[in-house]
């Protein structure tokens, strides 16, 4: 029974685990104790990771739609159909009419080859990944600055922190391996502050819980900055660029005055400021709870300012760690699955760098800025989708589904028949994580090798191989034979991965980029930026605005909570036994949505736990089952984000710059079903 060291395929933590194989089948999983992230632990998903691979529901053969039905085809036929379908659109409408989606689940190699396929073979700049909707809009993580996720921060910082600030993050649900470290830090005496509307377990255990009203994230952070700068005499370096603007922007944000808008009691905020100033090492964790806020960008800037002030002003040492949701969301970004850059965050206008890619790829590269995932819908005529599903990630799930249905041609590569795949013209079966080699990059930028333990079912094969086959069928073969070869090309062209030898063994936790060599190789590499502070935007301080205000007609605020059961319904989880145990409850007991209500609100609106309630908003009307829980604050109803996406109840707010859509807090009326 050999143990095969690899990496968990679920969240961005990237836990090390061992797969057990017998007679060519996966029969179990064990955690790795020596792995720097898992340290001998796995969450429920990791413990069941083998089931996602050895699963009767896997796609095993290429499927082509004929007379409305998906029927089995050979790889040659399928590649031919895909090539023809894409060529037709290319001929009639040009490359701009094709959109390509990469995957936060697939390997770096898959994503890299897909970028080459999109920008080289198809010559379309429209390449993105819909999971990116969960990333804070703003500069790429390489542009420096302590808050933007490419410094030295790592999960292990938690081991020496004396204050941990959870900002819109419930790691017990989203990043269990990180939560494990928070529990241990707390146990050794570190203090914990949780800022989130929901009183999640770590918030209940925290020294201070700030029950932040969704949408007011910038405001309470502004108040904290005000406290530190004005009241607590934070020794800020007066020469710091931007400091006076920041001061001005938070002047007057006395916690007493922001209390009503943020739900954060002034005394609690003062306590946080005191804790902050008496700490030596602070770790700030944020995840989708912040990143999917309507004011995510400015909020993250505020955190960046806080960290910068500290580093220049003799305050505590601060690491800001952005917790990415998926196993390879980081790598997917690194590989240039983005409309505005090439692998390694190479800007499209950097002639010399682009020329290197063109030379290596022996073709011209589409250099214009393309459409983002959410912009593609309704604008492109054909889509090529690898391990991604807009109907599961974009806030208006039904609109996303309609947009897919309206396409002339849709190709989906996946390991299961995902909702997107079931709408496709061609479905191509991919090899799962234990059936192939390659690398993933975790949320601390650990590049880790995954290993092949078993053969793929039927005719499934690696995503990059499928893409290469399609490219060949279009007359442009891509010369790749192995993951190693692809990785070496990546390390050569994308300076951020320079110095990483393949395979970066998972047992050691892989290798974090940038390596010293990588730092030398690229000027664009992370962490080089000066610490900066910026003024808080007046707009963001206001929050989501009038549309999110409760009133007589709609007296309750409905907030979609992305940290609440974030894995429910996820295609790779719902086919495992975790869905019979752990993950089934919400799906089974609350199939139409779990409306979490504070007991007081439940009483006030006359609804009972376990019973359906009628929910009305300015946008629509729906029924959801009520769960009465102290986790929900009074006056705010919480629904898992992935259920809210289908509810048709919520306002959608778009980022002014990137057009990124997120669900905005929406006022509602709740009542019993007649």
């Amino acid at each position, binding site marked *: *029974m*050999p*143990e095969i*060291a690899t990496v968990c395929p679920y969240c961005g933590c990237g836990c*090390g685990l*061992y797969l*057990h194989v*017998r007679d060519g089948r996966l*029969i*179990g*999983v*064990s*955690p*790795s*104790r*020596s*792995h720097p992230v898992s*340290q*001998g*632990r*796995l*969450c*429920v998903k*990791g*413990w069941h990771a*083998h*089931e996602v691979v050895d699963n*009767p529901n896997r796609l095993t053969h290429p499927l082509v739609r004929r007379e409305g039905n998906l029927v089995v085809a050979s790889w040659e036929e399928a590649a031919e159909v895909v090539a023809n379908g894409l060529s037709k659109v290319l001929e009639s409408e040009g490359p701009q009419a094709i959109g390509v989606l990469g995957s936060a689940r697939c390997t770096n190699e898959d994503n890299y080859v897909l970028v080459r396929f999109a920008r080289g073979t198809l010559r379309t700049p429209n390449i993105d990944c819909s999971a990116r909707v969960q990333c804070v809009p703003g500069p790429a993580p390489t542009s420096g600055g302590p808050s933007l996720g490419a410094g030295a921060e790592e999960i292990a910082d938690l081991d020496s922190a004396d204050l941990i600030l959870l900002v819109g993050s419930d790691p*017990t649900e989203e990043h*269990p*391996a990180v*939560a*494990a470290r928070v*529990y*241990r830090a*707390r*146990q050794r005496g570190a203090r914990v502050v949780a800022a989130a509307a929901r009183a999640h*377990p770590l918030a*209940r*255990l925290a020294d201070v819980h700030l029950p932040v009203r969704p949408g007011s994230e910038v405001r309470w952070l502004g108040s904290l900055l005000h406290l530190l700068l004005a009241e607590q005499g934070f020794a800020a370096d007066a020469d710091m660029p931007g400091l006076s603007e920041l001061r001005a922007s938070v002047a007057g944000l006395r916690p007493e005055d922001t209390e009503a808008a943020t739900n954060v009691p002034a005394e609690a905020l003062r306590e946080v400021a005191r804790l902050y100033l008496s700490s030596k090492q602070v770790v700030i964790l944020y995840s989708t709870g912040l990143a999917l806020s309507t004011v995510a960008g400015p909020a993250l800037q505020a955190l960046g300012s806080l960290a910068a002030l500290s580093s220049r002003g003799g305050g505590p040492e601060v690491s800001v760690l952005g917790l990415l949701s998926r196993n390879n969301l980081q790598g997917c970004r690194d590989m240039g699955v983005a409309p505005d850059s090439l692998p390694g965050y190479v800007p499209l206008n950097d002639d010399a760098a682009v020329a290197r890619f063109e030379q290596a790829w022996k073709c011209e590269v589409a250099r214009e800025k393309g459409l983002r995932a959410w912009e593609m819908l309704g604008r492109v005529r054909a889509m090529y989708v690898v391990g991604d599903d807009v109907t599961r990630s974009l806030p208006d799930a039904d609109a996303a589904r309609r947009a897919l249905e309206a396409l002339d041609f849709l190709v989906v590569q996946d390991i299961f028949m995902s909702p997107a795949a079931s709408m496709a013209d061609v479905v191509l079966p991919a090899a799962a994580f234990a059936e192939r080699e390659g690398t993933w990059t975790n949320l601390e930028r650990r590049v880790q090798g995954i290993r092949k333990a078993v053969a793929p079912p039927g005719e499934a094969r690696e995503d990059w191989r499928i893409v290469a086959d399609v490219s060949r069928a279009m007359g442009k073969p891509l010369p790749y034979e192995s993951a190693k070869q692809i990785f070496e090309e990546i390390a050569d062209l994308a300076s951020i991965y320079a110095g990483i030898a393949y395979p970066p063994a998972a*047992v*050691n936790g892989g290798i974090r980029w940038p390596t010293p060599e990588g730092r030398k190789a690229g000027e664009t590499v992370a962490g080089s930026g000066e610490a900066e502070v910026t003024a808080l935007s007046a707009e963001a301080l206001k929050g989501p605005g009038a549309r999110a205000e409760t009133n007589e007609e709609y007296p309750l605020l409905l907030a979609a909570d992305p940290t609440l059961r974030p894995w429910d319904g996820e295609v790779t989880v719902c086919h495992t*036994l975790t869905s*019979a*145990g*752990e993950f*089934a*409850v919400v799906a*089974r*007991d609350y199939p139409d949505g779990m409306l979490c209500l504070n007991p007081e609100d439940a009483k006030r609106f006359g609804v009972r736990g376990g019973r359906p309630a009628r929910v009305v908003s300015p946008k629509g009307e729906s029924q959801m089952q009520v769960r009465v829980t102290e986790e929900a604050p009074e006056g705010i109803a919480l629904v898992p984000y992935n259920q809210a996406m289908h509810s048709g109840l919520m306002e959608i707010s778009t980022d002014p710059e990137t057009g990124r859509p997120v669900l905005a807090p929406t006022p509602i009326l709740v009542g019993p079903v007649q």
Partner: protein
Amino acid sequence: MTARMLPGNKIDEFAVRLMRSAEVVAPRRVGEEDVFYGAIASPDEIAWDYGTAVEPLKRFLLPQREPILRFSTNGRIRVGAEYDEQQRVFLGVRCCDVTGVAVLDAMYGGDTVDPYYMSRRERSTFIALTCQQPEPHCFCVCGDAGPFLEGGYDQQWTALPEGMLVEIGSAAGEALVRDNEDLFAEAEVDQVAARYRLAREAEQKFGEFKSYIAGAMRKLSMNEVAPAVWEQAADRCMECGGCTYLCPTCSCFTVTDRMAGQDGVRERHWDACLYSCYAREASGHNPRPEREDRLRARFFHKISHQWAVRNGRQACVGCGRCVLGCMGWAHTPAVSEGIRRGVMT
């Protein structure tokens, strides 16, 4: 005590001879520095100097997933079963893990024998290795399962400078000596004395997680646990299932049917009583809807007097794997302490 001496230079030879007639499962290093019990191809692989293996022996007796029925729906239905009939010697495995098997025996034997388990169990021989340096998470002294055993093994080895002092605990253990008489020497009186001295010394070396389960057991069995303790434990549990999966004696399973064409297989899979759907009935009624209800049920099964009577001993052996594997902070020592003090830290 019947004891013999296996000189240091004969250990490998003994292992090689064992390998001729059985699969020898021993601790060995995997990856960087993880130790797993696994089948060895050569005695060189054995990591004699390990602390606790990442996992107990459970996987060898109760795999994480295993077929329990094969059937064919082609025409009239046919059903059949197959058993793992591999002979195995578990060599150099920890006392706590060997004791854990005794609990599994109680649960999978008894008046209704589980044939898949028993087929493996009957073909297993356990050579325990005593622990001279417990690790910080260990508390087998409170689990009555180490660091040295007084029985329950086929053989128990203690590493002495001259070699292994071999205590014989069963006929099977005795047969292994008899069949390899040429390798064994008589044990001297001071070698036996050394074993007892080492045992006493080892008992002094236990760390912070010494769990004092007895106190917790009393309160749990008498239904005297402050309800707040379960609520506090619930906030420290993430329902990962790790404590149950890593536990040498947790053995719940669930069952699924799976078809490939007209051939089907019924498989059982490890399950965990802490999962929210574990006790949920098809009607939607969940007798243990809250995490605190499930934690209470789990600890009742692990360390109540009532179950200790039914299983022949308390189910917790003190291997400490839940301490290492707990995603939160609701492992047995933490919860036992909470039960005793009426509050969790």
